[in-house]
């Protein structure tokens, strides 16, 4: 019943990417991971249209094009606005949360300090989205 997802993972921190990959292995997921280390790179991937992601997991704090700027572009573009974007960030800033929801996100996950907690959150998020009907 779980579908395999194409996940666009937008994150600049190599350790974060490594941990996410590790979590995917640990929970035995076969989702397809597309990595982008900043907003510009992620936009390039979306533009190329070789793979259209089912969901986007987005870090907010990134160099060049930051998460919110990237989100605005995705949500204002007819071709990409349907893609659910879930924020993965360490920022619990009230203003960030509010502006993300205003622009249009499908979730806001605060990355916890503990690896085990993180694993649970990633697992639940992916389970939820893989049980959804997606475009």
């Amino acid at each position, binding site marked *: 019943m779980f579908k395999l997802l194409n996940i666009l993972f937008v994150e600049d921190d190599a350790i974060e990417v490594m941990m996410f990959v590790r979590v995917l292995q640990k929970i035995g997921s076969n989702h397809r991971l597309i990595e982008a280390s900043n907003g510009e790179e992620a936009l390039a991937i979306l533009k190329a249209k070789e793979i259209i992601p089912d969901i986007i997991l987005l870090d907010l704090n990134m160099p060049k094009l930051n998460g919110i700027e990237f989100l605005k572009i995705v949500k204002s573009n007819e071709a990409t606005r349907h893609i659910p974007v879930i924020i993965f960030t360490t*920022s619990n800033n009230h203003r960030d949360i509010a502006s993300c929801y205003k622009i249009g996100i499908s979730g806001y996950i605060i990355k916890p300090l503990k*690896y085990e907690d993180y694993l649970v959150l990633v697992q639940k998020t992916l389970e939820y989205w893989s049980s959804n009907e997606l475009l």
Partner: protein
Amino acid sequence: MKKIQFEFDESSFNTLFPYFILLDKNYIVKFHSTLLADYFPELNDATSLLDHFKINPSNTELTEKVTLSSIQTKDFQLIGQINSYNQDLLFIGTPNDAFISSEKLNKISNSNLKLQDRQEDQLVLLSLIAEKNINSVIICDSEGNIEWVNSSFIAMSGFSIEEVLGKKPGHVLQGKETSVEQINYLKNQIRNGLPFKCELINYKKSGEKYWVKIQGQALYSREGKILKYFAIEEDISKNIALKSQTEELASNFAKTNKDLESYALIASHDLKAPIRSIYSLITIIKDDNELNDISNDYLTIIENKLEKMNLQIEGILDYAQINKESFFYEDVNCNEIIKNSIENLNIPENIEIKILQNLPTIRADKYRLQQLFQKVICNALNFIDKPIGIVEIDYKEDKKGYIFSIKDNGKGVALECQKHLFDISKYFINNNRSTGLGLSIAKKIVEILNGKIWIESELGVGTTFFIELKK
């Protein structure tokens, strides 16, 4: 010494000449200005000047200046005059180092002076006093042309007497940056014979501009005819410069403060990511390797330290994120707020939270108000040391606002710790769950809401937090 006759009119003197004292021929004080009494509080009308000012009558040449020292270390130069009529002595004084405050000047200009019959004598006296005034004094004839100025005027404006005599003060002093509105106001008041008072820009002979506070009025004859105009100008350039400096300083300070806050925000936020990375890597190292017990323990210690660091950073972030501009005011039902706060907190089973009455609806930022109550309730929970804990929430209402109280039966706060309780620079970390910044955050929110927070506490019995919020 010129002997003159003058009629003594208490109120006129008091208002016109801030510092004077009138003695009879035996040096007994008959009357003195109220302002002089400000500097010599021990003065009263029956006191002998000899005792107070240590004047030796045989040595005192009244043509000489007499310097008085007040107990408030203000020196006065007094100049004496003898009344030829009854031998009274009048001393008129100028403080050596002070200018007359504008408040005191107000008193001067608000009086309506009426020259008596002996105008000439009065004028001599007037000009003597005016001469000693630290402010510019200008006397104009009934046409408004300068008839006399004092030496302070010359010092302040840089013009000589010859250069200004017979001219209109406005023509001499005002210039292109002088407010047209104020000039018109002055013209209008003078034309109608009314007292005037305003602040405006004057120009020195050198072209340098300076700010003055000008006050003055027409002097009337008994028949109600305008005889002279009289004006005092106080140089307030320093005040104006100081005011704009203060404003600039305040705005710089606000900006620096803002910069610092956003710096704290960015720096703390940026620290969270590496802490998280280190923590995760440690977990991974533990997972991947069969480490000996000691190594495992060490790694656990590092994890604990990281957890504490992370909490602290979250506290700083919470604190730094609270700023006035982000407050959105709406009607907030406090019952709801307290309910949400309790739901967000993990209330231990041995602690009961009682809400003693239906709470009011107040105007505040909903999110911050909840944060405020949550921090205070959380603090109460943390300090409960009894087997059964009770937290009581109540409020009182008065005309000005609401005083909420959060009372616990915890261990209480020692008196010496009470004053530092809300102080961000002296925060205490008492257990692993706390950031130590909760009460600093509470205080910051209360202050932005224009309220007050304080405690009453007894060691071993409990603590009550009071939060006063204005209506």
